[in-house]
């Protein structure tokens, strides 16, 4: 662990490196704080990658909202009855 990361300038990365790490970053799969800083620093000054990131976020959010389905009440009842008989 390096607690002094904030004391040093974050090394800039190019767009390709940023995009390659973008999904891991957005999915919360990036554990390395240095790598996270690099991505965030790049997004702060790269309009193109920032827009791409916003698009991915929006698409993911729309997907989450669109994919949800209302569970029929009869299924809730069925499961309750099922578990009661266990």
């Amino acid at each position, binding site marked *: 662990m390096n607690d002094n990361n904030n004391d040093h300038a974050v090394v800039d990365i190019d767009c390709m490196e940023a*995009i390659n790490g973008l999904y891991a970053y957005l*999915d919360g*799969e990036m554990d390395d704080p240095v790598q996270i800083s690099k991505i965030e620093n790049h997004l702060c000054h790269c309009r193109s990658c920032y827009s791409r990131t916003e698009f991915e976020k929006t698409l993911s959010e729309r997907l989450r909202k669109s994919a949800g389905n209302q569970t*029929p009440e009869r*299924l809730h009842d069925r499961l309750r009855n099922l*578990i009661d008989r266990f």
Partner: protein
Amino acid sequence: MNTAISDDNAARTDGNIRPPGRVTDTGQMKDEDTKAAFSRHVENCTDSLYSLALRLTRNNADAEDLVADSVTKAWSAFESLEDRNRFRPWLFRILHNCFISSYRKKSVRPVEHAYNDLVDDDSHDDLTSLLIKQPDEFLLWWSNPEREFVNSLLGEDIMSAIEMLPEAFRITVLLVNVEGLSYDEAAEVLDVPPGTVRSRMKRGRTLLQKSLWEHAREAGLVSDDIKRCTS
């Protein structure tokens, strides 16, 4: 280290329900506690289970049967689940296995993207993300004034695109993007390495974007200026 979800923990019985919990001095009380805990866990994930089952079976009745079957199997194996904080991915795995063994053959399959979906490595670059391959025109489209209109149709469009994804990508995207599972959890549910989940997510998203992009062009959601720019 895979300690939470394994096939050993998955129920293998069909209909023969073995109540978990041991007979103790409190006897029935112990079982009731277990049952109450099980019931709470199921209640908390019913919506997610049903949504996933519906996307897999594409049929309301089958989705409900699949959820009920999965819950039955989960009950028979509940005692073997050591970490109950992992109930959700554990139950997803049971549902996925149940789907493969009993429901997949009869599920209605729409025309899916013609794609070599069994290839899980990153060696193919023909489907590089639109965000890399077509950055300028894509960003022009995305930032144009019609964006709000596109947004208003996006839910329906997205689900159509999801439906056309090959099953391996569809379920991976749903588990990670919709249900919020980590790559490791999704890997355990699908019984594949985490790296496979990562590559399926990349490819699934790429196919999704490609499909939406084509739909936007065909539906006239892309302005003439942008079409000229991309032609």
